[in-house]
């Protein structure tokens, strides 16, 4: 039976090859869109690790384009701002950070660590950050006064990083410093290399929110108390530079009216700087819009493409059945039942779909195998692959259904004298 189907397909190889190419290309298009959708859905379902309710972000614009240059007067002004926030009874808690959650932009770090390449999203935050956002410490502790004046930089990492770097081994007290270049003698620290010591692990902190991919995060402690502003290693700069965002947790029932008073107060403390207050909830809405809009556009285009392909296949199969009236009539005359004819038509398309999908999967599988888009979990690919394969089978069989029914209605006597 199967061999027979192959012979039939081979007999009309040119037409069928074209159809297989069409199914193959459709599969690739569908797979790309579905994989993107699965990736997004997978991100959406994981915990973001913080609470955005009643938290407002105050973006501080120091009116300069570089984050790296700052002086003591700017540090002093930033400290004044932090004090000013404490005056308001409306504010429960406040913290400083480089980037607010849901804010555009990111700070990343990648280097050789214990012989392999590691990448981190980097956040630099003050001690109250944990309470403002309600981060959950699952191991070790959060930053505290006991880190003051120590000869190390305290670091808190997220659970993804904990598993990636240390597996099930101990993480607290370990160093996060990159490997020393080979050119340096093994026990000679570069002059600016201060140990970065892991003091705690948080459940999660996904800075970009629900659509942030699965990745390592390292939170550095910001005190703005550095002795030499603008000098030293990257971790020292993170400790010393003024925060670009202040996060405040307001009491329930606080309205936009308070926002105006707050801005005027901050403006008075720092006349040459600018401030922008936005509730995290609003920033979250914007971030969701920005993530969904392109996905929706791509999804809509893909849906129309699939509709077009479906109509096209329907048309071609219809035409094919019309052309093969005599062949089908002959089979019926020789005693084939209606259901046999239908099974033949559906069987042919199923075999062609299988061949096209085999080629398609072979191409699609290259992405996880070659690690091209390394930050995507291979599971996402396989779920996407399974969904796309099923969808294409359903699509082609649905398109073949009507023509196959049409084939069963062919009467042998009529068909054999059909011109």
């Amino acid at each position, binding site marked *: 039976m199967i061999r027979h189907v192959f012979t039939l397909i081979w007999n009309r190889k040119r037409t069928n090859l074209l159809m297989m190419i069409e199914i193959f290309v459709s599969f690739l298009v569908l797979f790309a869109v579905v994989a993107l959708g699965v990736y997004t859905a997978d991100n959406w379902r994981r915990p973001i690790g913080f609470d955005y309710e009643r938290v407002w972000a105050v973006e501080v614009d120091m009116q*300069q384009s570089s984050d790296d240059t700052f002086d003591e007067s700017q540090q002093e002004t930033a400290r004044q701002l932090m004090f000013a926030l404490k005056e308001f009874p409306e504010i429960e808690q406040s913290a400083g950070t480089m980037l607010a959650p849901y804010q555009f932009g990111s700070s990343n770090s990648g280097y050789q660590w214990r012989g392999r390449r590691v990448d981190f999203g980097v956040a630099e935050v003050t001690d109250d950050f944990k309470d403002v956002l309600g981060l959950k410490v699952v191991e070790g502790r959060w930053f505290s006064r006991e880190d003051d004046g120590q000869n190390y930089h305290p670091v808190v990492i997220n659970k993804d990083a904990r598993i990636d770097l240390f597996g099930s081994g101990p993480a607290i007290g370990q160093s996060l410093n990159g490997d020393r270049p080979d050119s340096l003698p093994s026990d000679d620290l570069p002059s600016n290399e201060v140990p970065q010591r892991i003091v705690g692990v948080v459940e999660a902190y996904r800075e970009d929110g629900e659509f942030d991919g699965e990745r390592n995060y390292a939170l550095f402690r910001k005190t703005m108390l550095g002795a030499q502003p603008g000098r030293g290693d990257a971790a020292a700069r993170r400790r010393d530079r003024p925060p670009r965002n202040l996060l405040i947790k307001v009491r329930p029932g606080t309205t936009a*009216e308070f926002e105006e008073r707050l801005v005027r107060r901050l403006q008075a403390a720092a006349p040459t700087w600018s401030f922008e207050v936005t509730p995290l909830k609003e920033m979250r809405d914007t971030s969701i819009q920005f993530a969904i809009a392109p996905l929706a556009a791509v999804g809509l285009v893909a849906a129309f493409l699939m509709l077009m392909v479906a109509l096209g296949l329907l048309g071609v199969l219809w*035409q094919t059945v019309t052309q093969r009236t005599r*062949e089908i009539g002959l089979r019926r005359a020789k005693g084939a039942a209606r259901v046999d004819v239908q099974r033949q038509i559906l069987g042919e398309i199923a075999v062609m779909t299988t061949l096209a999908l085999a080629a398609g999967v072979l191409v699609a599988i290259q992405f996880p195998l070659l690690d091209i888009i390394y930050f995507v979990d291979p599971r996402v690919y396989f779920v996407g692959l399974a969904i796309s394969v099923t969808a294409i089978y359903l699509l082609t069989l649905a398109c073949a259904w009507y023509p196959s029914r049409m084939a069963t209605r062919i009467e042998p006597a009529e068909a054999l004298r059909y011109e």
Partner: protein
Amino acid sequence: MLKSYLKLAWKVLLRRKFFTFISLFGIAFTLVVLMLVSALLDHVVAGYPPETNHARTVGIQFASQRGETWRRNGFAGYGLLDKYARDLPNVRLMGVASMPEGVFSYFNGQRVKSFLKRTDGVFWQILDFQFLEGGPFTEADVRDHRFVAVINEATRQRFFGGQPAVGRTIEVDGQRFTVVGVVPDVPILRIVPFSDIWVPHTTAKSDSYTKEYVGNFIGILLLDDPGKLAMTRDEFWSRLRTIKLDDPGFQRVDATPETVFDTLGRLFTGDGTGEGTGYGRRLQIALLVAACLFMLLPAVNLINLNTSRIMERASEIGVRKAFGASSRTLVGQFVVENLVLTLVGALVGFVAAGLLLGLINASGVIQYAELSLNYRIFAWGVGLAVLFGLLSGVYPAWRMSRMHPVQALKGASR
């Protein structure tokens, strides 16, 4: 000859309406997507008012600073433009403007967000704004740090309920400005003129921007002869080479006067620096490749449909062949038929794209968008349709022409 082809094509279109619908659906949909993208692109890079001098204008937008280990990319700093981009050869006027930044005002307990652009006086000479009331601020206003502002119609509506605004004041970002002019809204896609509020750059809260090489300004250059852009660019580049930086981390500054399309190409195909040229060419190629990739599936779909429809006309072909029609004639006939089909599809797509653009404008997704179709986009649409028609018509036509007359007369199925 062509007339009978067209007549025949029309008859074929009307014969099997369902198949014609399927083909037209695919073609129209494909062209709608392509025309929407073209319209969007056209509104970013082509000259709409107030950029009436668009053809003679170039910009210095991206700039970068680098040394052995560090690199900083961004827009040009005011210091860079002020010191090195003035009095370049072949340049009639040079204006500066900052990138629009979000600023806030509070009134009646409400927060209002606007975009603010800081410019000089020349900006208003290069760009051709039609003032609804008042006029632009001048070079003297800029020099004397006067707190004056030009606002757009939407801002006048928000702050003054649409009443005349000249002479009244608005407070944004803790600063108070006197309105001197009102202009129509400019879509956010037109990044050079776009803003809600325009004020003299000297009203900035601190003058640290005047020393920056990489910052958030762009230079706008009105050329005498756009054909001699290379001359202007080479002089600017050679001036940049004279920059001596005291920071050992940054030793070199790069920026390039170029068209908006080149800048857009730099954004999408460049590495974010201000170096080099020819990014527009690269963007063109990238767009063409993307369009072809997008058309691949619709084209395969149409080829499939066309091939199966030819078989339906096997006897017609057989008769024509038996009476001596050459293969070339038949290929020609079929390609013309397919082109007619795609052009009808293009027309449907053009109308649909127009309606969709209206929807996008009304939805407010793109601020102050006035997306519309014009002859340029229509020309692009027709060009793409012809390309698509050829792409999907040639193979089936070739298959048809190779059919053996006897077999064809019998109604071939292979």
